[in-house]
């Protein structure tokens, strides 16, 4: 049986919905140097972090499965920086970059992957399960698409707090004890998740009740080894899926972090103000395999190189060190400063690896901690053994 939709060519650089040639980078350009330099640094941090992660994985110091974000850095940095710090985020399993962009301590992130007690989830979650509640980062998730209804629920709660509780109570603070305010939740997903029922059920609900959640499809062209046009209908126009639920959709290029911000920030602001959902087809590309054990038979090296040629970090660095100059013609970032930044980040990541390596593994007693809020060891037969011997605590 042949597929109804003729295969489209391999992914190629995207055309955003409304290119604004003249006023391009209008919003992002007006941000202070320090902000833009921070974005570059954060993207570089993610890149470096993933390099070190790959290394540690190959040396078998990280176990389990590991999905690297290399190539997609601009997406996490550009979108998350358009948010308020207390806007909730959910994500799938390629989640290290988002956690770092949201402000998670690289030490906690690395230690989690090393399975150490000092990890963000006490070393019990691993690469796919980064959680950072103080930063409103509600986790990586291992089941494709299953996080999207959670993002919808987080947004629902914020809207409920504003519109229902806010009217009847002076300061209900159901979520964090803070006064209610208009929020937007980001639900990140991959293009593979487009085909999961959970996403469609969530989008329908969000459309129906006008819930302020933005579904961000990090469209890197492949769900694991399946090219998008081989896995989903209307791959050339994903907006059709959003339209079906009455949700505004936009295509945004995910390579140029400033252009991404220019397109994304107004959408976040509108969804916050109007308390409504949106859907973004964010065109990006992962340089590495789906996971660390991906033979990558489904794409060519040429295709990968084509995307590497417009690398987000290279472009941003070139802009800050060349195109962007002050009145005296001095670039916002000097070669030396860039060098210094790279050194700082490399040291930070090295430190996170050392920290992880030197952290203790979780105590075996952690096996049965946090299963319930109130542990009931006497009612549970779980706590019999520690390290193969009977648990001395009982």
């Amino acid at each position, binding site marked *: 049986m042949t597929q109804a939709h003729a295969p489209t060519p391999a992914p190629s650089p995207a055309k955003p919905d409304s290119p604004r040639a003249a006023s391009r980078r209008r919003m992002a350009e007006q941000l202070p140097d320090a902000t833009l330099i921070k974005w570059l640094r954060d993207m570089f941090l993610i890149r470096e972090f993933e390099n070190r992660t790959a290394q540690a994985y190959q040396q078998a110091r990280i176990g389990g499965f590991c999905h690297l974000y290399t190539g997609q850095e601009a997406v996490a940095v550009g979108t998350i920086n358009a948010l308020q710090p207390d806007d909730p985020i959910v994500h799938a399993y390629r989640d290290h970059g988002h956690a770092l962009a949201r402000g998670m301590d690289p030490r906690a992130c690395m230690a989690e992957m090393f399975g150490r007690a000092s990890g963000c989830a006490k070393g019990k979650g691993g690469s796919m399960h980064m959680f950072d509640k103080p930063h409103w980062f509600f986790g990586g998730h291992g089941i494709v698409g299953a996080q999207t209804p959670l993002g919808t629920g987080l947004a629902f709660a914020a809207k409920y707090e504003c519109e229902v509780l806010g009217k009847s109570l002076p300061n209900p603070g159901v979520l964090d004890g803070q006064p209610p305010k208009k929020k937007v939740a980001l639900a990140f997903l991959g293009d593979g998740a487009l085909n*999961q029922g959970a996403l469609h059920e969530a989008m329908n609900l969000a459309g129906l009740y006008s819930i302020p959640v933005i579904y961000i499809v990090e469209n890197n062209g492949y769900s694991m080894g399946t090219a998008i046009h*081989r896995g989903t209908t209307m791959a050339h126009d994903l907006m059709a899926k959003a339209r079906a639920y009455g949700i505004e959709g936009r295509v945004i290029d995910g390579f140029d972090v400033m252009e991404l911000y220019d397109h994304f920030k107004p959408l976040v602001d509108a969804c916050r103000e109007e308390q409504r959902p949106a859907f973004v087809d964010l065109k990006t590309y992962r340089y590495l395999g789906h996971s660390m054990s991906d033979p990558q038979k489904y794409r060519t090296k040429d295709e990968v190189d084509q995307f590497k040629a417009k690398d987000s970090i290279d472009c941003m660095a070139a802009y800050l060190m060349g195109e962007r100059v002050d009145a005296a013609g001095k670039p916002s970032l000097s070669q030396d400063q860039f060098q210094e930044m790279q050194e700082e980040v490399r040291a930070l990541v090295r430190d996170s690896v050392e920290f992880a390596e030197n952290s203790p593994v979780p105590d075996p007693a952690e096996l049965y901690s946090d299963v319930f809020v109130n542990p009931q060891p006497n009612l549970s037969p*779980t706590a019999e053994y520690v390290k193969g011997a009977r648990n001395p605590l009982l």
Partner: protein
Amino acid sequence: MPRTPMMIEKGLTLVDAINEALYQELERDPRVVLLGEDVGLNGGVFRVTEGLQKVFGADRVVDTPLAESGIMGTAIGLAMAGMRPIPEIQFEGFLGPAYDQLCNHAARYRTRTRGAVTIPLTVRVPWGGGIHAPELHSDSPEAIYAHTPGLKVVCPSTPSDAKGLLLSAIRDPDPVVFFEPKRVYRSYREQVPEGDYTIPIGQAKVVQEGSDITVITWGANVFQCLEALDKLPDDVSVELIDLRTIYPIDTDTIIQSVQKTGRCVVVQEAPKTLGMASELATIIQEHCFLYLKAPVQRVAGFDTVMPYYKLELDYLPDAKRIVETIGLTMAY
């Protein structure tokens, strides 16, 4: 795929044996269709279906969208029409999204249609822990599906058993959930008969005969039990039973053995409460009460979420725990 010189010399892994069974059945029966995420071009997440799409074509080894409910439901539809679909669900945790289709449709259709519609479906699912994977990628949910009337549940531990049981499962007129222990996938080789053979579903295997105590297990834990047996004093004679089929349970083999030995330890990876071990212990007390010299003991995972890899070996039953429990049961 045809055997390589290495496979001929050193034997087949579990992955090789399952691949061979699929190859042979695709060749034998045109109604057989494989479907799942990346099973074709990429050869499957564990490379179990490697090479099959090239030989049998994309119509019979179908790469599907990433959507377990859709994969399972479509496979059930194929089966209703008389095909022999074999969906692959990449990890046992991903059965979650497909649960509705599997348990509320596949399992019940024969009863619901009073015998008019049958579902000859074989769901292949990598199962269990021991490969350093996190939760949802290391779970052991066999009891959930054994508890679902209308489903057969198989969990082989060796390449030879896997091939024979998979061929039985595919030819079985009812839905079979075929759990493949990931921990064994590439860690054990043995010579596997080359031709077509089946091992009946519902038949346990006595791995080693003994007279003092019966140890029952399945999946990867067979290997931990063998390791434990090596560490036991020579004067303890253990009868080791590999259940192979989780449901229907081979009660005859179990009852015969425990009536002979009078003692039993059941070893499972799954959390302790209401696992298969609980059911086996109940069957034993129903049928062997007056033969028992000691209470039936369970060596199991804990009632907790499967932990990430640094605690994995603290969770999974190991030889030490098995030896200790056998010792306690012998000394009761």
